[in-house]
């Protein structure tokens, strides 16, 4: 098929995805916002005006010892310890974003592997694995995360492990369904007919078809893993203080919400900004990767 006049011909599959993604105004704008958030967190050491843990006991608090509202010296104000909120906000993003991204990547990859293999192998293995997935989906996830973080102690790796351990079941179910339908397709049949071994069929013919879905699911599941991190930090079970994280900042602000509502408002707003743009970008990507679905109701 000839591309329409004035339209660049996509050079590769990913090139086509990029072209179709760029044409969607809202997801594209959301991608820019998301990039800005990620960059601000990644370059926090360069952007932050102060050390996020430094307590300005004199300049950072009002004469009565109250946190300061936004002012020229502390652009977003200070918290109850006289710490600069802008610096904490920038650094706090590092924890929430990296935990979200890492936990989602681990969880979705695990889901891809477990669900994909379960659907591909089928039979008794599939039955056993799917009962295990059912089991994982019927346990009180947040309670278990709480228990694990109490037992294993607090730290970045623990948090990532704990969250991803309870987030892979749903993706596994989705990928299993995909594999079940892929198995019926002609090209898999053809590969089998020419005698390709099972492992090769799975790795070369089935896995590549799951890649777009994997990317979309990582994006769609990050809000959930960020919520889990933020929630655990909020109740003091996240990365230990004084490392700032958005959840812990909301907790700090909770006791001062009458006098200094901005303390909790900034991190909350950052979380909303991040997850809204993530949802928009992921849905835009899904549309761009699956041109057949375009324009249809989800």
């Amino acid at each position: 098929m000839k591309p329409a006049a004035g339209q660049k011909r996509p050079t590769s599959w990913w090139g086509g995805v990029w072209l179709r993604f760029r044409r969607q105004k809202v997801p594209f704008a959301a991608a820019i916002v998301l990039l800005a958030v990620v960059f601000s967190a990644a370059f926090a050491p360069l952007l932050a005006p102060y050390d996020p843990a430094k307590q300005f006991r004199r300049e950072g608090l009002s004469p009565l010892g109250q946190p300061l509202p936004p002012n020229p010296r502390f652009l977003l104000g200070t918290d109850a310890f006289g710490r600069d909120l802008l610096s904490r906000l920038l650094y706090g993003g590092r924890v929430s974003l990296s935990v979200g991204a890492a936990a989602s990547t681990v969880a979705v990859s695990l889901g891809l592997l477990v669900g994909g293999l379960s659907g591909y192998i089928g039979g008794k293995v599939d039955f056993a694995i799917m009962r295990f997935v059912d089991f994982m989906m019927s346990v009180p996830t947040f309670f278990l995360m709480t228990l694990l973080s109490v037992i294993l102690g607090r730290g970045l790796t623990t948090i990532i492990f704990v969250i991803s351990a309870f987030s892979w079941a749903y993706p596994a179910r989705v990928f299993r369904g995909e594999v079940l339908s892929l198995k019926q397709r002609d090209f898999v049949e053809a590969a089998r007919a020419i005698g390709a071994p099972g492992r090769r069929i799975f790795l070369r013919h089935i896995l590549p078809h799951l890649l777009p879905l994997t990317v979309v699911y990582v994006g769609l599941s990050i809000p959930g893993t960020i919520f889990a991190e933020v929630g655990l930090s909020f109740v003091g079970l996240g990365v230990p203080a004084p490392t700032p994280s958005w959840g812990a900042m909301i907790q700090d602000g909770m006791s001062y919400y009458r006098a200094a509502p901005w303390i909790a408002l900034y991190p909350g707003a950052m979380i909303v900004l991040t997850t809204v743009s993530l949802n928009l970008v992921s849905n835009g990507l899904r549309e761009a990767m699956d041109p057949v679905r375009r324009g249809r109701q989800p």
Partner: protein
Amino acid sequence: MMAYLLRRLFWLALTLLAVSAFTFAIIFAGPVDPVQALVGPRAQGEALAALRRQLGLDRPLYVQYADYMGKLLRGDLGYSFFFKRPVSQALFSRLPATAQLAGCIMGLSLVFGLPMGIVTALKRGSLLDHSMTVAGLVLISMPSFFFGLLLIYFLAFKLNLFPTGGYGSLRHLILPGLSVALPWSVWYGTILRANLLYVLSTDYVRTAYAKGLWQRLVVFRHALKNAMLPLVTMLGMDLASLLTGTALVEYVFNWPGIGWQALTAAQHRDVPMVMGSVLFGAALIGLANLGVDILYSFLDPRVRLA
């Protein structure tokens, strides 16, 4: 039906066995010393050894497991260090608060969600339709406890309409209920809208219109019933998750339910209490799922329990 019930209960028992084995494994056989986790990193030496003897943790692992399972079967979940009472007693005493909150959330999300879904489906592409999409996106992208804090700030503190937290009256229930129910109602509204749009395009609805029936009659009598069915399934799954999933909201509003209790216990390293909450939560979720499946078979005659 009886066989189905028995098999489901068997699976539930198996699930609980697995959960209990799992919690036992991470606590007693995991990489971290449970006694150290209990008392914190500062305690050491003789004090640790004494506590270990006192708790019976110096015995072989299989003896401990037998002991643990034996107590579990008798309903003994241990003693809560922080709340100073038996864990099972603490759990049952908090159940009413959590159940009230769950019921309130379900009720409110339907009260808001159903009209939203119907109106946006009938007025597709209208300003209302678009604003629901945007509002839904923002609400779903917000952690419920943060939304709860916003509600406390504006409705309880600024406008003084509701108490900022606590337990007791219907007024205490509204804000924690809303902080989960509003996002959910948008979600239900979106699902109902999609289902309703599909059902309205089917032949039997066209027939109803062709007979000259009023739109109201067609929508409410003919279309809505079928559009609601998938929603009932979702409702069931969500009800199960509500029993343990509102912990953070309970915490923000000081609502003394199971979740608040588990989080408070966790902050004080009260391991038996958190462990008990996990098991209790798993049992509640299992029973709720079972109940919903049975209810569903009555609502939809096409569903056969097998």
